[in-house]
């Protein structure tokens, strides 16, 4: 289990980010944050994280778009992306649907609110898969 993996969290909900950051640091992960998609992409370049936790609903560039950009860039395409959202499935009028997410090839999806253990488990799972793939 990679103990010093660097995780980038991109979410505009500062309270949630702070709480999740503490949860992950408690498990010995290194956490950097960004609060919108644009900043997120900049941080990816700067920090080269091992995993990205991405929120869907953000200003300036929402999660699906950022994910699509990441995956189409060969430099960052292998970084596992966990899409976190308070948005459920199949909302007819919502601009964001899970189907949209499916097309953006994120590696995992989770619905907010999420239990600490569940989040950590998913993060570790993704990192394991990544390790095996390399």
């Amino acid at each position, binding site marked *: 289990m990679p103990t010093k993996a660097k995780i980038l969290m991109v979410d505009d909900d500062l*309270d949630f980010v702070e*709480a999740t950051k503490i949860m992950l640091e408690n498990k010995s992960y290194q956490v950097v944050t960004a609060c919108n998609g644009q900043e997120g992409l900049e941080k990816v370049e700067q920090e080269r994280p091992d995993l990205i936790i991405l929120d869907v609903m953000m200003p300036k560039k929402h999660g699906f778009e950022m994910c699509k950009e990441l995956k189409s860039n060969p430099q960052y395409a292998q970084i596992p992306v966990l899409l976190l959202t308070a948005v459920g499935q199949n909302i007819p009028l919502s601009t964001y649907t899970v189907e949209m997410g499916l097309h953006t090839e994120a590696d995992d999806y989770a619905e907010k609110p999420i239990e600490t253990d569940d989040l950590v488990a998913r993060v570790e799972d993704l990192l394991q898969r990544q390790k095996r793939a390399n």
Partner: protein
Amino acid sequence: MNRMLNNFSKILQGLKASPYPKKLAIEETELIARINWLIRLRWIAVLGVLLTVWFTNNVIHLNLPILPLILIDVFIACYNLCFFLYDKYIMFKKTSITSVKIAVRVAGFQIFLDLFSLTLLLHFSGGVENPFIFYFIFHMIIASILLSARASYFQATIATILFIILVSFEFYDIIPHFCLTKYIGTDLHKNRFYILGISGVFITTIYLSVYMATAISKKLREKEELLDMANDELKEQDRLKSEYVLRVAHDLKADMAAVQSCLKVVIEGMVGKVNEKQMDMIQRAERRTVSLIHFVKDLLNLSRIKARRDVQTTPLSLQEIISQAIETMRIRPDSKNITLQMNIPSSLPMVNADKTNLEHLFINLITNAVKYTPQNGRVQIEAEEKGNQILVKISDTGIGIPGSDIPKIFDEFYRAENAQAMEKDGTGLGLAIVKYIVQMHGGKIWVESEEGKGSCFSFTLPKASAGMNK
């Protein structure tokens, strides 16, 4: 939480029961329009009488007593003018419930005057010999259109009485009789005038009757169309309302997620030590947050289902869906030592249903069964084929539902008292969601239960026909 739910359910019950004042506006304008139509018809009738009298006297050379006939015609024209003016007066004033009643009575009086005038006209043009005696039919049709059934039969009686008076008075020579037959003779079928007269009455009666009746049936069909459209509009409004609730619930959930995460972090001790009292208060806060999150999630589920315009169904295996549901359930039956028994024949055909919704359905029903059954109880799931449907039964040995609660148990936000006593946690939406899903698939759901003994929820789902894939 329970108080809030009780309030919600009371509001919902109140909304269903409230009687809305009847839409008198539509009936009023309809009635006024038809009375206008009657007045217009009468002008035409006045002209018609003049023309017929002229024709009969100058073309057929039947010497009818012109003066009485013209006088009666003038009489009709006069009272029609009065009604015309009165009608304008009603339209000018604001219409109300009482003015509609008055308008109906006035219409009745108009028809009576028409019957009386027709009888007089007939008396001066041959009485029982005159084929125009059948024109009474029009007044009966008009009465049936404008008045209530009882009033119409009353008018029919008046017409009959007037007819009997006319015929019997002429028979007993109480009043003089104007004879037509001296012009016509006995071989009626050879008589041009007679044939002309009968044909005139026959043809006009037939076409005018159809005109009157179709005017009404056309209106009825138009009204039906309007009703259908209004109904569709209402359904769409309800769907939009659910979409609105959906969006609100989403915003709520986002905030709740943040609150819960922050509280969790404290509870797990990740931001330092807290003393017992602090921990206690924070844990209370966290529990209420979790409860609120469940509520919002359930509300989201219900609104999501209601907001959908269509249902996408595929053939599904009940055993698979139920097994998946049991896996996904938050509550574990073995934690209360409850045995979960599945009696589903392997030969059971597949159901035609929406996968996510069907899973939700079973999660809700089985969760309920486990939740409200005390330790060492039993939950049984059975399914059997019934015609072109599958009947599913989920029964438990739980606390049951009191008789007075059974009719309301599927209402939104409703929780029976014994359920609230047993489990503080509960949104009252689970069964509402279940009922909605069953109805969405065209099925029925019902419950048999005895307080203290247990409950059995039964519902039907459509069977998937062999080789059908939607």
